[in-house]
């Protein structure tokens, strides 16, 4: 990792957090965020991602460890002196203030001059394309507009860093996608560091430079979206990100980069060795649906399957097969006009050894 003299912009150093002294909601968190990065904390609810964000914002104190911002420990700095902007889950716009007053609030408490305040508010409103809505109250705006006001408010005082806690959770699907791009573009334009929390993996994949996948208080994997999807390091990440077919087996042979895994009643699978124990231990195999080939002539990693269900999705066809004791095995086939599968028919499936990953059995 980084040498001690060139620390990251934000550094979580051995952070533990417990609310009741019995359960750790965050365990030994070490996370570095570079300046200008868009980092997403992704995980199911209760995985500790929001707690981590709240510690960074200053609303929770770490039970152990220290958070550094620009090389300075910030645990003892109260939230109002951290200069960190935040977009809350339900926006937390102040209902008794107009949009303009909401935006000038952070500038007012910083004792900015009136003209400076006005100028910055106008700039921020223009940035989110709400220039004409300054005199409205939050209740008079739509969900998407409120969202953009919240974003503008978090940016208007030029914070060192912006945190976003599931900011799009309350929007409907179309608007959510539109806002994802908008936030991404604003980030690219002004180059601010963003720490984003979500449980929606497609949102994380769309927006982030890097994603930290949280589960059970631990960062399972921290990498760029493509690596996260294509090279998951453990079965949680493999299952949480994207669609995934898993098969349980026992490790038979270790060939260095590859390994052989026996699936009971089906045979031997050759797979990429990622995260397995020693020979004889159980392992979980993971292959993406789009990497599975149908009826190809291969001699290894080729198995017989039964078509359980076919779902027509226009551009592709989704087949649920039963393969290697897994009757929830999904295959995606692009619709090229030549698919003649029938339900209950038998087909051959196969995959490349480099596309199937042997992961931990949990």
């Amino acid at each position, binding site marked *: 990792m980084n040498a001690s003299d060139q620390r990251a912009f934000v550094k979580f150093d051995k952070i533990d957090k417990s609310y009741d002294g019995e359960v750790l909601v965050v365990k030994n968190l070490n996370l570095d965020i570079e300046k200008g990065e868009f980092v997403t904390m992704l995980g199911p609810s209760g995985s500790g991602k929001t707690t981590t964000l709240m510690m960074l*914002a*200053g*609303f929770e104190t770490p039970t152990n460890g220290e958070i550094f911002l620009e090389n300075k420990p910030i645990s003892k700095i*109260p*939230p*109002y*002196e*951290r*200069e*960190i*902007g*935040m977009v*809350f*889950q*339900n926006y*937390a716009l*102040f*209902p*008794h203030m107009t949009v303009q007053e909401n935006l000038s*609030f*952070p500038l007012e*408490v*910083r004792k900015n001059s009136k003209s400076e305040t006005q100028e910055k508010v106008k700039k921020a409103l223009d940035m989110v394309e709400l220039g004409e809505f300054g005199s409205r109250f939050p209740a008079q705006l739509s969900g998407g507009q409120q969202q953009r006001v919240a974003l503008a*408010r978090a940016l208007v*005082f030029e914070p060192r860093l912006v945190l976003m806690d599931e900011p799009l959770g309350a929007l409907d699907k179309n608007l959510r996608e539109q806002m994802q791009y908008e936030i991404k573009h604003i980030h690219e334009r002004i180059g601010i560091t963003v720490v984003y929390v979500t449980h929606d993996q497609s949102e994380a994949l769309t927006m982030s430079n890097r994603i930290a996948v949280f589960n059970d208080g631990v960062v399972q994997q921290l990498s760029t979206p493509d690596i996260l999807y294509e090279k998951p390091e453990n079965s949680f990440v493999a299952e949480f990100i994207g669609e995934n077919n898993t098969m349980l087996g026992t490790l038979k042979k270790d060939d260095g980069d590859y390994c052989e895994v026996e699936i009971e009643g089906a045979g031997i699978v050759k797979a990429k060795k990622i995260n397995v124990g020693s020979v004889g231990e159980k392992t979980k195999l993971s292959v993406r649906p789009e990497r599975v080939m149908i009826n190809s002539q291969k001699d290894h990693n080729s198995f017989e399957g039964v078509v359980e269900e076919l779902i027509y999705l226009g551009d592709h066809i989704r087949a649920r097969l039963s393969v290697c004791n897994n009757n929830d095995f999904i295959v995606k086939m692009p619709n090229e006009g030549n698919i003649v599968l029938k339900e209950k028919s038998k087909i051959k499936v196969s995959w490349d050894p480099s596309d199937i990953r042997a992961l931990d059995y949990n």
Partner: protein
Amino acid sequence: MEVTISATNEILTTDGIPLKVSLKKAERKNKIRAFLLVFPLLLFIIVTFVVPIGDMLLRSVDDSQINTVFPKTFEEYKKWDRQDLPPEEVYKSIFFELAEGEGIQIGKALTRMNYSKSGWKSLIKKTKRKIKKIVKSGDLPTSYKDTMIEIHKGWGDPSFWVSMSQMTDERTLIYYWNAIDRTYDIDGNVIMQDEKRRMYIKTWIRTLKVSVYVTFFCLILGFPVAHLLANLPLRYSNLLMIFVLLPFWTSLLVRTTAWIVMLQQKGVINGVLVWLGIINDDQRIQMVYNMTGTIIAMTQILLPFMILPLYSVMKVIPKSHMRAAQNLGAKPVKAFIRVYLPQTVPGMSAGGLLVFVLAIGYFITPELVGGKDGQLIGHWIAYHLKTTLNWGLCSAIGSILLAVMLVLYWLYNKIVGIDNIKLG
């Protein structure tokens, strides 16, 4: 879809009936049902609320009873030029009206006459018996005026006659003037009451003062409790809510009596203070039978009426608001004042209005705990209702109370807006 439109630009239904007519027809049944559901309550409110209040308002200006007792006299009286004494005709009318009038009605009229000038009652009572005797004997006098003055020299006192001018109208404002320590002089001008009889303005001011204090203390004490209630985990807040509501389940009298036990000079609080050596035995604090006692007991009793509206407002203020304010750079105190407090205004004003309106008309507690200088205006309403039977004055005080409340509601609506009221 095709929409049929008639010549007059009305949208028509498929059958050609105007849409509005059709809608009205379809809705009629619902309307009738809604009305029938509300009707019993409406009737109940009219009978038990609107009618009595209307009656009270009428009574506060009503002077018709006396006009039914002395109609002829008043008619003659109006012709008098107000010089010296009234003409013979007036004396004659009142002579016969006293002789032939119904005892009870005359009695009521006398009470009314005494409000305008004390002495009327005894004057007429003393005269009436003799007049009846004269009428019975059939030996009618030649000059009624002289005879009556002979019976009682009061009849020769012009001030009695002048005061009658206040009674000849069927409507009077005398009760309202009385309710604020004023009365008419013999010329019909409004003047202050005698020094000894001035007690209403004092009581009004005290009532307002106590109500303001009680509202203020309820707000000061209730705000933190409501805040705690709204922010504690459900398990604890439910328990706390029971404590808040406990007073509602205890008789008002019991609670008031308990306060007397607590606050009196030989009571619990003084006892503890003496025992702790904070005060000497001869320095026991007078906390009951005065305004202090009234304020303490009423604050406790009215506190839930402040807490509940505040609680319901605070409950829906998201916790993230305070966090957002701090995140934006406001220190906790500033965040509280700028962000939290303004959002509790509907609760504060609803609670304040409720407590104030209840306090201004409070009776039992100040009556028991208040002693002589802790009594509120309700005391005089009860006093005139039960003891003096001066229902006119009673109604006037009640009407003023009603007017004060309406003014408050009006102000509230102007400042906060009545649709912002939140009571739970």
